[in-house]
């Protein structure tokens, strides 16, 4: 067969133009003219990839070959094969793929499949400079590139898996915060400690309030005891004055009565006069009561005279305005109270929302906040604000508001008080007028008029004494806590305003004598003794029991109560300190609980997102729903519990009791979500492990091929580190593979004396075998197979390995390339003899031997001519084709 290589221009890698049609020929030519490239191109179009182990040569082949036409003729069937190659089409494709389909093929000018071309002719190249070590190295290098391709391919799959599974697990991956069981324990402990601290703080607050109240109570008793003696003296003096005034009135009345009796009056008038005289003292007392009440109201309202209706309205409106103003000031001044009020309103609205609405997002503060979260947050803060003390000015404003409200109440009560006073006044006036009329009708003399005038003056004096006595009495009763009995407060209206003459029988004396008052105060002192501090009670009891005058006993009681106040002050201080300490401890526990709750809440928030993502009907997990349900069932989360977690997201409070069904469901959901996420991650990790092992294998084989032959010793990997990185599996595999290569019948026959067993040792790169004839054990390093004798034997073995090739194709052509060493070692004739007798016709139909130029082109040509070998000279490019003598 003749092989012609042609191209339209001069560009492209150099290649010899023709390989003539000789069964056996030698091509002797200059270096660099493309003899080897011609052989490799023909291998390439035969479907082989001669560059698998030579990535740089392949890159050059792709970039620089250019457009090339290969024409093959001289086939036994007369076919003419044309192959059109364009290396620019190979860029970006794998070298294996390019070898399968390198360009366009034609047979007899008709487009043909490459398989058809390869059925007609197969070309192989055997390199004379490639010994056993190089062949093994090339084989491993080719395998390393195969492994590299698998690495890349698997890597792409891992990337794709990572992208798809990553997108899928975005919403659930963050659930894996780890240590959530510890977080729950911490949260439960912190919550229990907070509850205990709250109880303790409440108890301390109550104790402190009780201590303060007790102290204030005793201080009030002490103050009362201080003023009581003076008040009793004043009351006694007023009582004396009243008795004196009353005696004057009685005397005046008796005088008038005496005047009356001296007159002629009818029996009816007599009875009426007596009745009126008997009623007048009572009417006077009732009038005194209402006047005292009116005066008390006026004193409270700081009014010197009666207020007109207009004035009362004006002052009422003014009080209302002032109350509103103070309320507003308190709202802005007492922010805690204002905020708490707003919190109650907002929280109430939020809690009242339907369950589904509580899951909706209501605000965005760094993240989306749901309704129930906002309500929980407000409740937590409200609880904190409950402990915020009121500022002094707020308390002062509240007291002012209370005073204004009292003022307003008294202003409202004034008309009724005025009415009753006027009514009582009218009763007194009417009685006196009637009495004067009755008596005047009997006697118009000057003496009567004078007596009447004195009686009127005495009554006026008595009224003043009554009022004074009532005031003293009221002061004492107020001091000993009997204000309500006096009817002086707003709203405590008396029922004695209906001067029903028949029912005018006072059940309780409105005016007390000094003895009565002393008795009342004594009773108060006795009662008070029952309630005072235990440590003062004995001294108090002794004081009460004594027979000393009341003032002296009060003085002793005062001494006892002063000591009690001192004790209670100390206790109140201690209680106050304990309350402060408890409040601080509570604050610290609340902060710790907040932190623990935050940790749990963050995890639960993520779990909620994950659960919703897994449950979402239109979400990325929808296609996996059945499988997800099975996983969740496996961890004990039933479908209804799963749906409940979606409907009502988990909250920290759900975790407080481990037997709470919600807690059980949350923990199961966490386990399930973690498992799902781990499974997704494990798939990617499993693929990545495969990829990594392909990478390790590719690198190892690449490096190891360099160890076998210096020609391939370009590995960037350090041999020691590579061996350390790869396990025994890989080295064993390499050892087995090389042993299998060496154990082919052809190699065993040619190189290993027909040994049945050939083994390769990785540790020292040696081959061991046993000579079958002598049973002698042999061991030799790989590089020892590069001797001339061994190379010849190896070449024969490689030719033998091609024997099967002829069964699948019409024609087999073998190039024995780079056989210059054979010429130099005078083994060429031996090789040719072997080819002629053992290879041509059995292994190959045509064999071409290429050797370097041994002299000038002309010398080579002339030498061959002299030997009658009919050489052909091709110059340029500069080579001679010498057919074998056998032709």
């Amino acid at each position, binding site marked *: 067969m003749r092989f012609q290589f042609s191209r339209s221009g001069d560009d492209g890698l150099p290649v010899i133009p023709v390989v003539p049609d000789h069964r056996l020929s030698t091509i002797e030519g200059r270096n660099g003219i493309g003899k080897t490239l011609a052989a490799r191109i023909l291998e390439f179009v035969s479907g082989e990839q001669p560059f698998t182990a030579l990535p740089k040569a392949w890159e050059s082949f792709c970039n620089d070959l250019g457009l090339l036409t290969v024409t093959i003729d001289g086939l036994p069937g007369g076919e003419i094969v044309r192959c059109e190659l364009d290396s620019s089409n190979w860029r970006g494709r794998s070298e294996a793929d390019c070898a399968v389909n390198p360009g366009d093929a034609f047979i007899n000018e008709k487009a043909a499949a490459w398989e058809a071309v390869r059925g007609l002719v197969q070309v192989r190249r055997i390199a004379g400079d490639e010994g056993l070590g190089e062949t093994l190295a090339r084989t491993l290098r080719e*395998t390393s590139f195969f492994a590299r391709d698998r690495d890349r391919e698997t890597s792409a799959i891992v990337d794709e898996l990572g992208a798809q599974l990553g997108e899928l697990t975005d919403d659930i991956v963050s659930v894996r915060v780890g240590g959530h069981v510890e977080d729950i324990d911490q949260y439960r402990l912190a919550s229990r400690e907070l509850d205990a601290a709250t109880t303790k703080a409440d108890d301390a607050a109550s104790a402190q309030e009780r201590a303060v109240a007790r102290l204030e109570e005793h201080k009030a008793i002490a103050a009362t005891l201080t003023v009581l003696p003076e008040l009793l003296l004043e009351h006694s003096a007023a009582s004396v004055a009243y008795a004196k005034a009353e005696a004057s009135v009685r005397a005046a009345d008796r005088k008038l009565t005496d005047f009356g009796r001296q007159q002629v009056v009818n029996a009816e008038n007599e009875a009426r006069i007596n009745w009126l005289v008997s009623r007048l003292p009572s009417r006077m007392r009732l009038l005194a009561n209402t006047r005292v009440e009116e005066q008390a109201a006026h004193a409270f309202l700081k009014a010197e005279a009666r207020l007109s209706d207009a004035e009362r309205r004006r002052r009422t409106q003014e009080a209302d305005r002032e109350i509103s103003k103070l309320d507003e000031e308190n709202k802005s001044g007492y922010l805690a109270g204002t905020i708490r009020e707003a919190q109650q309103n907002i929280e109430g609205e939020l809690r009242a929302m339907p369950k589904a609405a509580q899951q909706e997002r209501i605000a965005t503060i760094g993240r989306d906040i749901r309704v129930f979260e906002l309500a929980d947050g407000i409740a937590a803060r409200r609880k904190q604000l409950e402990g915020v003390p009121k500022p002094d000015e707020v308390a002062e404003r509240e007291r002012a508001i209370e005073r204004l409200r009292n003022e307003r109440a008294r202003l409202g009560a004034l008309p009724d008080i005025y009415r009753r006073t006027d009514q009582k006044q009218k009763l007194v006036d009417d009685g006196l007028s009637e009495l004067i009329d009755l008596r005047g009708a009997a006697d118009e003399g000057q003496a009567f008029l004078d007596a009447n005038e004195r009686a009127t003056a005495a009554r006026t004096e008595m009224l003043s004494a009554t009022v004074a006595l009532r005031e003293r009495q009221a002061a004492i009763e107020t001091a000993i806590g009997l204000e309500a009995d006096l009817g002086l407060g707003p709203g405590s209206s008396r029922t004695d305003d209906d001067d029903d003459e028949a029912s005018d029988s006072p059940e309780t004396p409105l005016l007390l004598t000094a003895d009565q008052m002393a008795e009342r105060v004594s009773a108060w002192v006795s009662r008070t003794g029952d309630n005072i501090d235990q440590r003062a009670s004995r001294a108090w009891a002794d004081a009460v029991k004594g027979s000393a005058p009341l003032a002296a006993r009060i003085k002793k009681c005062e001494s006892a109560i002063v000591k009690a106040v001192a004790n209670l002050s100390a206790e109140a201080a201690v209680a106050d300190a304990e309350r402060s300490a408890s409040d601080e401890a509570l604050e610290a526990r609340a902060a710790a609980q907040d932190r623990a709750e935050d940790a749990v809440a963050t995890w639960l928030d993520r779990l909620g997102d994950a659960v919703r993502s897994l449950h979402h009907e239109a979400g990325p997990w929808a296609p996996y729903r059945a499988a997800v349900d099975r996983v969740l069932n496996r961890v004990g989360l039933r479908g209804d519990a799963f749906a409940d977690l979606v409907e009502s997201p988990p909250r920290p409070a759900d975790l407080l009791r481990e037997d709470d069904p919600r807690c059980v469901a949350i923990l199961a959901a966490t386990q399930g979500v973690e498992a799902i996420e781990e499974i997704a991650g494990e798939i990617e990790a499993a693929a990545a492990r495969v990829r990594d092992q392909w990478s390790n294998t590719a690198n190892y084989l690449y490096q190891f091929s360099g160890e076998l032959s210096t020609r391939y010793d370009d590995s960037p990997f350090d041999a020691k580190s590579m061996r350390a990185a790869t396990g025994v599996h890989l080295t064993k595999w390499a050892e087995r593979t090389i042993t299998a290569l060496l154990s082919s019948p052809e190699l065993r026959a040619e190189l290993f004396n027909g040994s049945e067993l050939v083994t390769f040792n990785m540790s020292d790169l040696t081959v061991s075998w046993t000579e079958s004839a002598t049973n002698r054990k042999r061991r030799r390093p790989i590089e020892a197979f590069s001797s001339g004798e061994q190379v010849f034997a190896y070449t024969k073995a490689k030719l033998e390995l091609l024997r099967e090739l002829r069964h699948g194709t019409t024609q087999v052509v073998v190039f024995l390339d780079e056989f210059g060493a054979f010429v130099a070692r005078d083994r060429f004739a031996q090789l040719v003899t072997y080819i002629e007798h053992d290879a041509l016709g059995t292994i190959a139909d045509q064999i071409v031997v290429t050797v370097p130029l041994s002299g000038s082109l002309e010398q080579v040509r002339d030498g061959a001519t002299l030997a009658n070998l009919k050489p052909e000279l091709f110059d340029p490019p500069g080579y001679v084709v010498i057919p074998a003598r056998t032709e």
Partner: protein
Amino acid sequence: MTDEADNAAASAVSRSKYADSLDELIESMVEVELDALQVADKSALDAEYRNQLQRRVIAALRARDQQLDPKVLLTSALELWAERP
């Protein structure tokens, strides 16, 4: 991967007479790696399950004439976990 790349990969495989041998080698090396890993790491997944899942992934990667479907793989992995004894 593109169709062209698929074809190229298939061609490369067909051109390596060691493809099956290498696949078995990779499988054995992955098993060794996984065994060592399971001693060291703290996965919530048990060793037997991980081994089974690894084998499924290896089989899916080895069946290179079929497009590897992550959805099928994940579904089968979830079911395998749910069904484990």
